[in-house]
């Protein structure tokens, strides 16, 4: 199956943007990643099995493209993250603290944490998207949670 790209853009653009931002920590790069991901969907005439398959594929492509951005030698002049964070509105000081702590986690923990807590993916789905083993996902999730707990204390529940 295929879906019109206009529908996919409306449905997933923000999710892809947030995961790309989570990796790039830069809004211009994140927006480029989302554009490139949808361009790849348009040009790549792949047939998908289900809508969830499309969603997982888009997320995987966005993650790969965001990681590539970080590796690219010719990176744009990066706006300090703090400047962007000043433009965001947080509902509470805990929200700000959580955002700030997540964004400072090592990338490999940050991505797994994001797929689990933001995208509601199960461990086996995360393993499939990132092409790593389920046990590897569990380890990254566990270490990421510990780092969050160490910094956030009572703001972060023990949910392992």
């Amino acid at each position, binding site marked *: 199956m295929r879906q019109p790209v206009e529908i996919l853009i409306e449905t997933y653009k923000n999710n892809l943007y*947030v995961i790309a931002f989570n990796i790039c920590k830069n809004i211009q790069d994140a927006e480029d990643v989302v554009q490139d991901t949808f361009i790849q969907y348009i*040009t*790549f005439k*792949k047939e998908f099995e289900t809508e969830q398959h499309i969603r997982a594929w888009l997320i995987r492509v966005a993650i790969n493209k965001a990681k*590539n951005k970080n590796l690219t030698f010719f990176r744009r002049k990066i706006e300090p993250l703090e400047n962007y964070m000043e433009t965001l509105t947080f509902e509470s000081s805990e*929200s700000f603290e959580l955002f700030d702590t*997540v964004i400072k986690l090592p990338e490999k923990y940050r991505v797994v944490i994001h797929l689990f807590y*933001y995208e509601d993916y199960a461990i086996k789905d995360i393993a499939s998207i990132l092409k790593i083993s389920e046990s590897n996902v569990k380890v990254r999730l566990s270490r990421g949670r510990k780092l969050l707990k160490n910094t956030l204390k009572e*703001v972060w529940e023990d949910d392992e």
Partner: protein
Amino acid sequence: MTNKEKYKQAFSGVHISDDFSLEVKTMTNKKQRFNQMIAGIVACILLVGGSSVAYATDLGGIQRTLQLWIDGDQTEVSIEFEADGSYAMEYVDSEGKTINQGGGGVAINADGSERPLTQEEIIDHLNDPDVRYEEDGSVWIDYFDQKIDITQKFDDDGICYAKLSNGQEVLYVTIKYQEGMAYSPKKYLSPSSFNE
């Protein structure tokens, strides 16, 4: 509030710009134009080419007539080689149209200096595998007399691996969908090693 709810609330302020869809359409056109300009990079030899490239014509080069495999058909081609490593060629395609193409390239020496490609190096590379993207969405590899449909061979990341043989040598080809290809007679090259 659960951790998931807290997490989603913390990231709820991160939003993409509202005029995003328009930018995608603009970028699509740019990307397609760019893809047509991607040059082949093989080992330490650089070749640039494409239809209607006028490259150092009328410099009094050496003209030869050769049989080359083009789009899977053996085709008589008239080629003029120039001393600067460029060439201009003319042939009649399977539909009877006269096609003019040109290109050129340099080889990079071990010390980093460049030299023009020789005639034989250019001929070798004119027989390289070629990837064709058809309007119906199908993708083909042309290699000597073979036309191979690889449309369904791409994985979820848009990567296709193909092993080609012309009866004398084997090539391991890695193709990135719309983003070029690389090959080696020894092994499949990693997608991250080219056109990143």
